[in-house]
């Protein structure tokens, strides 16, 4: 009797979420899968086009460029971000006074970095007459406009991503706090120095979090939009050098209203993210250490 009653009440509590799931998540997902096989421009009803949208990828130079730019960004920024996060977390771990302020300082760019304001700032900093070049001028070097030179533009964005290593750092700090002191004490008794202790004790115990952060950062980097949009003026310039996948998708879908094509791009993105995540889970078996299965992320 009570169970049935709870069923009803439970679904009442879940009702808003379920409505959202149906109308705004699961429903749209299926619709966008359907749209990806059509020509759709919002005004006219979608027209079935088979796999045409997907076939067009093969001949769309901008698309291929967007894929390349995004891969360079992901491969360039993810390991560096996680690496910095780990290194700084190890330095900031502990109870000494003042560390709290440092943690806040190192985390702050992460909190503010996704904003339009910081992207505008970045455009200034790496611009022709920006902060970086004025710094370089002090030592007698005349720098190029980093933002508007195709070879360098992507790196300014990678630097911006790495600058925001604060949130994976917080996750590492939480993980470091979980490591039992006894393990380190035992290692000290066995004559292990700080480096041996880090490699032998800390690092293996942190591998689940390293894995977790790598996956999260990868997913987030595939999805990055605001900085690319602002820094390139919305068009992915110079010479498509910052035409990120999401930026191209936005342009196709919401500027040119080729919504079928944009949907095909969205599903391809989803498939690639899923594939990469699955791939990382496969490698995890060989390098991620779980003390107990419950500790899995």
């Amino acid at each position, binding site marked *: 009797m009570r169970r049935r009653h709870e069923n009803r*009440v*439970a679904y009442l*509590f*879940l009702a*808003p*979420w379920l*409505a*959202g*799931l149906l*109308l*705004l*998540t699961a*429903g*749209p*997902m299926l619709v*966008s899968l359907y749209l990806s096989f059509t020509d759709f421009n*919002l005004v006219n009803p979608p027209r079935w086009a088979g796999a045409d949208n997907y076939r067009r990828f093969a001949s769309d130079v901008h698309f291929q460029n967007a894929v390349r730019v995004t891969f360079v960004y992901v491969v360039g920024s993810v390991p560096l971000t996680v690496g910095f996060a780990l290194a700084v977390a190890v*330095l900031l771990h502990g109870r000494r006074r003042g560390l709290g302020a*440092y943690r806040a*300082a*190192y985390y702050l*760019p*992460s*909190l*503010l970095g*996704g*904003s*339009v*304001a*910081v992207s*505008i*700032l*970045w455009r*200034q*900093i790496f611009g022709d007459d920006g*902060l970086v070049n*004025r*710094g370089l001028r*002090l030592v007698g070097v005349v720098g190029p406009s980093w933002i508007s030179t195709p070879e360098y533009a992507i790196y300014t964005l990678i630097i911006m991503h790495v*600058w925001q290593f*604060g*949130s994976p750092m*917080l*996750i590492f700090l939480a993980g470091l706090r979980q490591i039992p002191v006894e393990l380190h004490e035992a290692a000290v008794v066995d004559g292990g120095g700080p480096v041996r202790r880090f490699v032998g004790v800390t690092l293996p115990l942190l591998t689940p979090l390293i894995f977790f952060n790598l996956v*999260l950062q990868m997913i987030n980097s595939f999805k990055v939009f*605001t900085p690319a*949009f*602002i820094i390139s*003026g*919305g068009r992915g310039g110079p010479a498509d050098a910052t035409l990120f996948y999401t930026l191209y*998708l*936005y342009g196709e*879908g*919401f500027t040119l209203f080729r919504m079928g094509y944009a*949907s095909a*791009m*969205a*599903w391809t993105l*989803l498939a690639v*993210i899923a594939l990469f995540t699955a791939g990382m889970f496969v490698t995890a078996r060989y390098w991620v250490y779980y003390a107990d299965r419950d500790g899995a992320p």
Partner: protein
Amino acid sequence: MTRRLLRQALLAGGALVMLYPLLWMLAASVKPTEEIFGGPGLWPRHPTLDNYRSGWVALGVGFTTFFGNSLLISSAAVIGNMLSCSMAAYAFARLSFRFRRLWFAVMLVSIMLPIHVLIIPQYTLFHRLGWVNTFLPLIVPKFLGVDGFFIFLMVQFIRALPTELDDAARLDGCGPVQIYLRIILPLMAPVLVTTAVLTFIWSWDDFLSQLVYLDDVGHYTVPLALRSFLDSSGESSWGQMLAMATLSLLPMLAFFLVFQRRITEGISTTGLRG
């Protein structure tokens, strides 16, 4: 001893490098234009608030409107998330019902879903409803619990609360609704604060959705206004732009200073965004 000094120097130097861009923006916002393009230094020689005064009204429509719009959207989003996410979280954490594990798994997957596979059908839907160029597409979803991140955060929190309280309330004749309202919700105060703060910051910053749904300058949020500022003006108005950019970060900065611990705990216990 030297090792500790070295470590201190490294940490302080690193922090300076990390914060320098932000400090420089703050400094530049009170410098006259020619001084912004002077050197890379921080200290303004002729501090002035001109950039703020002229930047505030530089777009024709004043920033009063943009801040008002952003504030309205973010506040509504906060209320929506606190209600819908706490209800779902209570069900997941405390009630037994059919398909609970399945729904929970679905919710976890939805957190990771890129917005791009949803935004075109969502746009089509809101377009049909006549909601494009209103704030509704930015607010209503929050009342439907689309931010699974917070549901997850709250479920973790509720599970750590002792169930004896629920049992006692049940003996006193409380049903699930009353237990939620009288026991769980008040005890959830810390996680509700985390949710409120992070929701506010993230919807303040949600550039893509705002860009897609808001066309008319009168409806612009602060990020959209900054973007059109950037598009419409040349090098001469960097000072004004940086002044407005600085102001746009202030609400987030204020929340961070006040709720630092809540934010960092929210990020590190679930770690799913940030």
